[in-house]
């Protein structure tokens, strides 16, 4: 799957910076859209003006997978997961919350609520994604670049869409 980026989304917006959406401009709107902090419907010109019809359709197609993803753009498909634990050990937040994991040791059941990933019943599970470094920083309108869980997942069970 190709990554969505804000510029691609921006290209399909009206690019008039009319601010009807309540944002400072189309680029800012695009970034929030990817962070799922604003709905596409807020850009009223897109829906009201016939000229944007094609662009709207494309945008909607582009954004559909995102609606299944979590705030960080991370999707975990359990059917693909083999429980290797790579995500769990490589994720900097997991290791910070569960220091034993720096030695490759998994997360004990009583600590499962502290981390992002656990491997339970042979499959990875996402517990608390609000801790992920990619979690949108609304102020800065930016994402941390971390995506190591996706890079090192053996099976493509983890995908980061943005």
């Amino acid at each position: 799957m190709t990554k969505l980026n804000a510029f691609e989304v921006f290209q399909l917006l009206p690019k008039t910076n009319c601010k009807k959406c309540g944002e400072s401009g189309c680029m800012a709107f695009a970034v929030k859209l990817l962070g799922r902090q604003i709905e596409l419907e807020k850009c009223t010109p897109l829906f009201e003006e016939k000229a944007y019809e094609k662009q709207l359709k494309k945008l909607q197609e582009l954004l559909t997978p995102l609606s299944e993803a979590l705030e960080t753009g991370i999707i975990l498909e359990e059917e693909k997961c083999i429980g290797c634990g790579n995500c769990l050990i490589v994720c900097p937040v997991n290791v910070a919350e569960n220091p034993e994991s720096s030695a490759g040791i998994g997360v004990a059941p009583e600590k499962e609520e502290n981390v992002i990933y656990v491997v339970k019943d042979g499959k990875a599970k996402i517990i608390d994604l609000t801790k992920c470094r990619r979690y949108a920083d609304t102020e800065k309108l930016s994402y941390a670049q971390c995506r190591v869980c996706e890079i090192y997942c053996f099976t493509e069970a983890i995908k980061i869409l943005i």
Partner: protein
Amino acid sequence: MALGQVERIVCPHCSLLCDDVFCVINDGKIVSTYNACMRGDAFLKLVNSPNRLTNPLILEEGRLKPAHLSEALDVACNLLSRAKKPLLYGWGSVSYEAQEVGIQLAEKLEGVIDSTSSICHGISLRLIEEISREEFKCPTLEEVGDMADLVVYWGSNPADSHSRHLSRYTVFPRGKVRITGRLEREVVVVDVIKTRSAKGINLFLQIEPEKDLNLIKALIEYLSGKELPENVGGIMKKDIIDFGKMMKKAQFGTIFFGLGILQQENFKENIEGLIKLVKHPNLKGQFSLMPMIGHSNMLGFNLAAKKMAGVPYGYGIDFSKNPPEKTTVTEALINGDCDAALIIGANPFASFPQKLVEKLQNIPLIVIDTQMNLTVKKASVAIPATITGVETEGTMIRMDMQTKKLRKFLDSPSENCLPDKEILQNLLQKI
């Protein structure tokens, strides 16, 4: 969340013997696992499976019928005592303690005993010892994790065979020396196809089938400062040089090789080549070779056979000879005159080549197992056993020769299921 009874255990499913697995137990059953990979989880959940063998079975009028344990043991005992040269085969997933009793039993019966290792990496270990003329030594997996800056998987596919190899031990942990973990290591995979293990690594070399030896030789030539041809076994010169440079630069490198290296016409030369490669004088770092042993306690059998009868790795023992000689299951079945077989913790009807299966089909079989399987279905008598590391304690040897103690944390599923060791001791006494 209330978890109920939680046990930290050693996963008994593969020779990584991961010791950070948790089982949540409810009503005497494993309802949930933490940290076990998919295969380990499935194995642990089989404890409660309907396919569990909980009743002794005896073949009567062409059908397996439930019997009393004492009856089944008597039948097993008779078949074994009557046989001139029984074969005792399997042993890959039973405890070291049971393996020792198994060897004593073979000795008493003047039969043949062998494990899965003689058709697997036992051969690798033996060749390494023969060729290097020294005892096989390897770093521990923890040492690899602490120090390795180069980890190579050659003809092995850990993602699918030992799923937690990289995350629990070799690549992702932050080690004592490699304190940031993954970033300080190079990971290389050499294989004939791009497996899942080849994702997220530094270099993947797709070698043409049976061309591993050419690549090994090319690397040796590169290290010796010789010119390389443009292409070796489908691999570009540039990639070989990259690999060679990684080896030269590395302070600590380990090559984990799999059946891809062994299941080839020239497997001997492959292993000889790999030994030459890791011992190359132009390598500054500390290099080692480790076969990716599969069965949880295959190594245990090798060590027990070595200690008790002095046979090298990858061999079984023929106690019909005086003094006992080394042999293998293949040799014993093809040329031998084995006239009964005891199969324990193995499913040869599913894993053996056809010509060996045919041999087994024609002799009485005593099968000791935890699950119903193809081999049990062919048995003259089947004896149910408890699962080592779950319902029975015992020792197993990890792929890097480290000893792991496994606990009992569940009760036996039935009074008919005894630990392997007890079943074998029982037979030993009766015979």
